[in-house]
């Protein structure tokens, strides 16, 4: 085998769907408890939001997904009008990293997750 890719995908290395389920619970609580950003979640259905977080984390963990930039843009357009900016995106990134650390995910995998999540920044912020 000459490929540099590992046998297991990023998603599998992190722990697959079970890891996503655990991560959603930690991640969503961190986000909701953070006064810098929790006002953006004031009028959303918590169950639907948790389901969206799960879809997002699945994507960020390199798992199967059907997210498109347009979806991200549309979903966050209302929040951009409310003032969503880089500082809020950074806060969410911080919680994503913190969540993975709590789950003892190795740093090199956290970096890969962060770079996938980072790739959505411009779509999320409508730029």
């Amino acid at each position, binding site marked *: 085998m000459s490929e540099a890719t590992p046998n297991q995908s990023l998603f599998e290395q992190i722990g697959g769907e079970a890891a*996503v389920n655990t991560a959603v619970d930690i991640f969503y*609580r961190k986000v*909701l*408890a953070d006064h810098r950003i929790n006002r953006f979640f004031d009028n959303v259905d918590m169950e639907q939001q*948790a*389901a969206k977080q799960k*879809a997002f984390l*699945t994507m960020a963990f390199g798992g199967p*997904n*059907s997210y498109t930039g347009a979806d991200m843009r549309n979903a966050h357009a209302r929040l951009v009008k409310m003032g969503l900016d880089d500082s809020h995106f950074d806060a969410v990134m911080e919680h994503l990293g913190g969540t993975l650390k709590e789950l003892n995910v190795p740093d090199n995998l956290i970096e890969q997750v962060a770079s996938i999540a980072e790739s959505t920044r411009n779509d999320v912020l409508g730029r």
Partner: protein
Amino acid sequence: MALKKIILDEHETACQEGETVLEALLRDNVDIPFSCKQGACQSCMVRSLDVSPPAHAQKGLKDVLCKQNHFLACLCYPEQDMSITLGHQPEYFTEGTVVAKELLNPETVLLTIQCKDALDYYAGQFVNLKRADGLIRSYSISNSRRHAEKLSFHIRRLAGGKFSEWVHQELNVGDTISVSDPQGLCYYLPDKMEQSLLLIGTGSGLAPLAGIIHEALEEGHSGPIHLYHGSRDVDGLYWIDEMRELAEKYENFHYTPCVSRGDAPEGVAHGRANDVAMGNIPDLKGWRVYLCGHPDMVNQAKRMAYLNGASLQNIYSDAFHVASPTLD
């Protein structure tokens, strides 16, 4: 042989071997919401009207949704023909007769309606009550499942509220009223009998909670059951004596009335019901939580309960939205 029929409204789609219900419907150009196609986003949740859906298609759904045969179309490889629906079914109404009407407090009446047909409901669900001219409002059933033909409701009089004013002033014992099928997902299922329950209600939000509490106690729920009932002042509370008696009778039932304004008389806590409850019970990990009443209370308490450790699967809520903007 391997084809399974999926019937949605009047339309029939053939689902092929190895194909999910969502794939079959999309192939057939049926307009159905969906997004992730992998069971995460729950956008494509539908409901079976006849057979129980395969268990794998209900992965991650709340128990009350599973019980009502909801499933995710993207995960469902049907095992048999299915009739499904995307939304709510047309309502079926049965005829009811008012058999009792009494005041619970200056602004709330206890209305008891004898229904022609027994209703299959869970304690905590609501029905739509319909006046002869078609005016409809939703009210929670306040009794347990023991009396399937005789349902009680707590109807709070709202200033300018067309329906509640009519109930308070004009509806009398002996009058008829239409009663819809029971609806809603905030209800009690008698499983995990040792689980701790926290119930928080404001105003007539006590109605569904009282039904749930009676149901749980009658079913022999063994875990602690904590009720916090709140209002602005003592006049807005009711059933204080009844709930205290219940707490005397059942060791595992605990009751705390709360008032948010003015002085609280002895035995009544001062503060908003959700604040008092979360202050007393800061760790809700593993608890089942029911929240009914004012939408602001329900939304705040839901977030607080979640941040205090309750899982979303274990939080059941029913926000009482009112038609008139002048009401609080």
